[in-house]
């Protein structure tokens, strides 16, 4: 039940409603039904939905070394433009196991231009053949 309330609240806010008004309405509605005890659970479920939505929108550029990040941002420029993401909103993450190149992740998309992925690809082709 708490999840359903949280989801409904999220949808109302996504629709453009003012947070204060939406919360007041929710509070009154719960009070009228004698379900005020659900409020903490609804808050937790709402936080989860919000965290999930935020994670969905985060775009991460993974590089093997910090020094590679500028070049990687340049190379990924077209992809970021297509996705409507400003380079300043991109989170840079260092992952040494990528060996080189870069990997762009976020908004249900993945572009793997890392050296590790390319070497794995060659390894699979050689071992399959």
């Amino acid at each position, binding site marked *: 039940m708490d999840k359903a309330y949280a989801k409904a609240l999220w949808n109302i806010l996504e629709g453009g409603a003012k947070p204060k008004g939406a919360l007041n309405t929710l509070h009154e509605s719960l009070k009228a039904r004698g379900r005020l005890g659900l409020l903490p659970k609804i808050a937790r479920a709402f936080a989860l939905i919000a965290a999930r939505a935020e994670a969905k929108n985060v775009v991460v550029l993974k590089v093997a070394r910090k020094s590679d990040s500028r070049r990687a941002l340049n190379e990924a420029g077209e992809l970021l433009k297509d996705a409507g993401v400003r380079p300043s909103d991109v989170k840079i993450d260092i992952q040494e196991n990528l060996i080189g190149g870069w990997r762009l992740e976020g908004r249900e998309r993945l572009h793997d231009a890392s050296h590790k992925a390319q070497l*794995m690809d060659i390894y699979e082709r050689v071992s399959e053949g």
Partner: protein
Amino acid sequence: MEQSIVQKIINEIERYTPKAGVEHVGKITSVGDGVVAIDGLSRAVMGEIVEFEETAGKTLAKGMDSGGALYGLILNLEEDGVRATILGDSARVHEGMTVKSTGRILSVPSGDELLGRVVSALGEPLDGKGPFAKTTMMPVERESYGVIDRKMVSVPLQTGIKAIDSMIPIGRGQRELIIGDRSTGKTTIAIDAIINQKNEPADKRPICIYVAIGQKESKTARIVAQLTEAGAMPYTIIVDAPASAPASLQFLAPYAGVAIGEYFMDKGRDVLVIYDDLSKQATAYRQLSLLLRRPPGREAYPGDIFYLHSRLLERSACLSEEKGGGSLTALPIIETQDGDVASYIPTNVISITDGQIFLDSSLFNKGIRPAIDVGISVSRVGSSAQTKAMKSVAGTLRLVLAQFRELEAFMQFAQDLDKTTAERIESGRRMVEVLKQKNGSPIPMEKQVAVLYAADKKFFADVAIKNVSKTETALVEFLDGQYSKELAEIKKTGAVSDGLKAKLNRALEEFRLAHKELFTDK
């Protein structure tokens, strides 16, 4: 050797072009019991294959050791994500893992190379005989052929079992259910039917596919050994989803089997597919559905349990000449509990199929094997595919047996029987003996016709019941040696002409004179 590997690597590097484009992905939010919930993948379609990215976050060396690609199958599309089943070792999947959309629908390899092989529900070789070099990928889920593409079932599929070929005949393209309690000989009938195809000419011999669902590995190994020993493996493919396999593979195995069969059917070949058994597939599907949080219905099966079997069995067909004239015959097996054919899954499958062979545990325990209850067994389309020869000798068989069963029950209360009734009972007893058959020894159609012709002519009336089987074997041997031309004629023409009948009568008389000892022991 080393030089060639180095050269191969150099070649691959030289012609390597990096994968272009963006992949659509999702993240695993929960995993358990072979089912994963995935956040994202909003463009995924039902039945799509997804790939779990195991190498992310690992070093190159560890990535190479990860044990090959691991795939999943999308079975639920939800508001904020999808649910998929893992087609492999679920221990390799963890929360937070990236899942890639492949845009592919599940398919399995098929082709001549699969003949004589044992493969998994995903078409991977399980027999250690190496990978397949050249195969064609066939979609696991495919729409069945429509009315226009089909023709009437008209060619018999000989099982080599007298009781079936005479009274419950099966045609090529038919769906005949084999149903009964555990240990009543269901698998034996199916295996005998495969072995008997050896008696067919190579160009008309059906490709046989045995799909083992939720079976013990030891049982499947025994079946493979039996088929190998009988020389049936060169035209047989085994699809194995053992009891130890994930529920997803047990659910998919029959579809994989029919997809492999459709390749041959589309090429104009005849195919026989055995699903052993669909009760276990239904159980696996129930498990998956409950884990996928689909609403449970009767006996906790999901609402689409009927469709699970109907869409599988509808893929059996006898194709028109325009479509190549191939056929796919299905022998699904259903295991009942305490002989209850009226429970949920059995009634579903009975209503889908074109008839059923019911195996009775009480007959089995009486030593009547195959333990077919001819009273409730039926073949709805097979009679049009029965040869004239078989029709002419088996026309009254069902009636004789039905009368015998009724009189046998009555006999338990009656002390004195009139001569006619006693004769009928004795005749029925002998007929039951004639229809008995050892497992693994199917009999070719022409020999069945000869034996049933003899039985119809009351040839066994003077033979002691305990000697009927021995007499029958001796008769078949005698005919095989002395009257092979006549047997060949029955096989070729599929009929028993008046001239042939006269020759058979002479043969029976000769046999009687040569084996007097068998006809005196009352």
